[in-house]
């Protein structure tokens, strides 16, 4: 069947966007040749955060499941990568995939319970689960307890990390964009807008939510695995920390939740903000929070939504005349 989410007249625009995207990827790939380790390191962090934001936006923005479990998936991915890397000779791509697979399986296992909760309760449930997991890891001596695990493999240089994080982000972005242009997109958004009615329209909502949850966990876990590789050692407080979740949510909301470009735009601004406030660590959070408040107030669709002139402005007027 031909009908994806694409509308007539958008084919050209979509092709243009694709070309621009490819050009951006090529330029980004050249960064290590042009800039030093500072920029490579910053680029790695931006790519990693963008990956997290892309994943969270799929689940929260398009499926309506506002999870605060990002930290848990990052941590699981990081630990899976470290443990498998220390106890096997598996190549790097396999380790990264394992970093995604473990949180995805975890997501599938907890979903029957977690999906009983809806809306705000799901959010709180995911947060409770993430915290419980962190406390478990702190106390579980099998995985190194509070002191964590040291990786046997040497930490690669920054340019190598950067070149690893770039394809991870691009693949995550491509995966999510393809999904959003497929018929699945309608099911995700229908579940978000009204799950009960979606079921009445024949949507198997449990499967739809499970798929989005598992995919989000997978992508998030791979980003966590990258963290493990970068640090060379992991401990539960950092790997399972709330700051992963807070950064991700802030980025998506600033950039624009449920927009395609929001996570990337949000990452750029968030990382730039963080860098410009590096000298004032005590003010960093306060200013980031202020930016967040202002964005929510003036641009509920985020900065990406502000950039796109909303095409139904005119329609609103026509509608009002009908009232």
């Amino acid at each position, binding site marked *: 069947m031909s009908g994806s989410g694409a509308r007539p007249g958008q084919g050209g625009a979509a092709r243009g966007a694709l070309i621009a995207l490819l050009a951006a990827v090529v330029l980004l790939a050249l960064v290590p040749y042009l800039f030093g380790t500072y920029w490579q390191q910053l680029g790695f962090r931006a790519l990693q955060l963008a990956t997290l934001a892309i994943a969270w936006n799929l689940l929260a923005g398009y499926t309506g499941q506002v999870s605060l479990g990002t930290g848990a998936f990052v941590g699981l991915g990081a630990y899976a990568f470290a443990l498998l890397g220390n106890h096997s000779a598996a190549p790097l791509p396999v380790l990264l995939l394992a970093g995604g697979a473990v949180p995805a399986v975890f997501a599938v296992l907890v979903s029957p319970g977690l999906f009983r909760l809806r809306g705000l309760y799901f959010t709180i449930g995911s947060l409770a689960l993430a915290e419980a997991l962190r406390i478990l890891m702190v106390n579980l001596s099998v995985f190194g307890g509070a002191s964590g695990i040291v990786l046997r493999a040497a930490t690669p240089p920054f340019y190598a990390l950067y070149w690893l994080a770039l394809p991870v982000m691009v693949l995550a972005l491509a995966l999510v964009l393809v999904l959003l242009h497929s018929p699945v997109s309608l099911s995700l958004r229908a579940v978000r807008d*009204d799950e009960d009615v979606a*079921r009445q329209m024949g949507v198997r909502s449990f499967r739809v939510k499970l798929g989005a949850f598992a995919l989000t966990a997978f992508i998030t876990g791979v980003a966590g695995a990258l963290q493990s590789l970068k640090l060379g050692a992991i401990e539960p407080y950092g790997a399972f920390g709330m700051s992963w979740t807070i950064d991700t949510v802030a980025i998506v909301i600033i950039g624009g939740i449920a927009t395609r470009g929001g996570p990337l735009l949000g990452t750029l601004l968030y990382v730039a903000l963080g860098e410009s406030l590096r000298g004032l660590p005590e003010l960093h959070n306060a200013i980031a929070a202020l930016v967040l408040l202002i964005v929510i107030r003036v641009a509920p669709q985020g900065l990406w939504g502000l950039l796109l002139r909303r095409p139904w402005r005119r329609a609103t007027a026509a509608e009002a*005349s009908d009232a």
Partner: protein
Amino acid sequence: MPEPEALRVETLSRQFGGVAAIDAVDLAVRAGETLGIIGPNGAGKSTFINLISGALAPSRGRILLFGEDVTGLATEARTRRGIGRTHQIPRPFARMSVRENLLLAARHARAAHERRADREHCDAILTRTGLADVADWPAGRLPLLRRKRLELARALALRPRLLLLDEIGAGLVEAETRALIELIRSLRTEVGAIVLIEHVMDVITACCERTAVLSSGRLLTVGPTREVLADPEVAAVYLGTGEREPAPGAAPAPQGGRQSSVTPAPLLEVRGASVSYGGVRALRGVDLVVGEGEVVALLGANGAGKTTLARAISGAVPLAAGSIRFAGARIAGLAPELVTARGIGHCMEGRRIFASLSVEENLLVALPPEARARAAGRLEAVYAMFPALRDHRGKSGTAMSGGQQQMLAIGRALMPAPRLLILDEVSLGLAPIAVEQLYESLRRVRATGVAMLIVEQNIHRGLQLADRACVLAHGELRLAGRPQDIRASPELRALYVGEDAAATAPP
């Protein structure tokens, strides 16, 4: 071999707490049939549809769809077996476009190999239901009546074998009702069977071979529509005194309005009021006067600007031009709460009862803090006008029947003792008997000397209560005068139900 039944329910029951919303109902819908279901507000009609579609699980009983027991199936599985439904209060996928709402339905109701030509299928339905011009709008931006149409369109996109329609005729003017009847009739050959819940009797009589009556969760009777509607028991629980509404333009009926020719002192004066939404003018230079203690009916097709005018008066939408004076003082530009403080009560479209508050708390909430001393007196005054509210004062506001909830909404607007009460579509979605009781109460309200501006779809009821009437079309005042003159005017038909209405609102 007998015709297979589209739907059969056996001893179907559903309890909410200790209350049986549906109580041992046995009913069959024949293949090819359109079955009407009528009954008072709160009789269990919507619960019945929720049980069949799977939105609610029955406490007891069986549901057979084309001979197959679907009682244990999940909602989505029932949809895939051919059940399509609408919601009484529309529930569009608000952030998806209107077309996407339909595409989603079309894609999930059937197996993949049958999914060809979804887009053509959906666009054909959009055209047929008059939504083609808004196909790319986010569904959440549609006004209420279009949302209702979207409910129907989305259910049709499912290609259902059994279609369950829940009050899709509410709030339509005559021309639109006729178009709806045509549409439902044309569906007969496409849909296996239709169950039609409706308060609009014209739709029931025109579409349904048989009609079932639910009352307090029980099946009162089922049979040929004509016989059921003639049943005195049905009249007692549902239709009321059976006073039929004469068509506009017919011979004048006896007047309930004030016959005095003395014009009362003006309380509300609207001069040259214009309102724009974006670039579109919804109201152009409308003049309207409501005298002290006078009742004015505001009539017109959907989209004519009635609600806009009501909202402009109460300060909910700003005026682009013109002036509004109330009791001699300018009120245009005041915030809604300040307008309320001046003595204008606005009972808005949709009841907006606070579900977590009791009936009495719902009323008390409407009193400004400085008026709390008068609370007991105001409660007594409102209870005197709406005795039913006194009987339910401790209950949750939404636990009452639809008619009583509407009384509560009006009572709430009356709590601050306004001098002018604006009522917007208060009879919408109510059973005939509930409308009758509501208008009885409104007579008691009028007797207290409160002036009223009544926005009404139900011309007959509106004109019965009114001292004067105004007819709006395309945002302009077209006709004003005494009810008997308006009713007799041949222009009314043209303005209100004729070509004009057909032009403003797609069928």
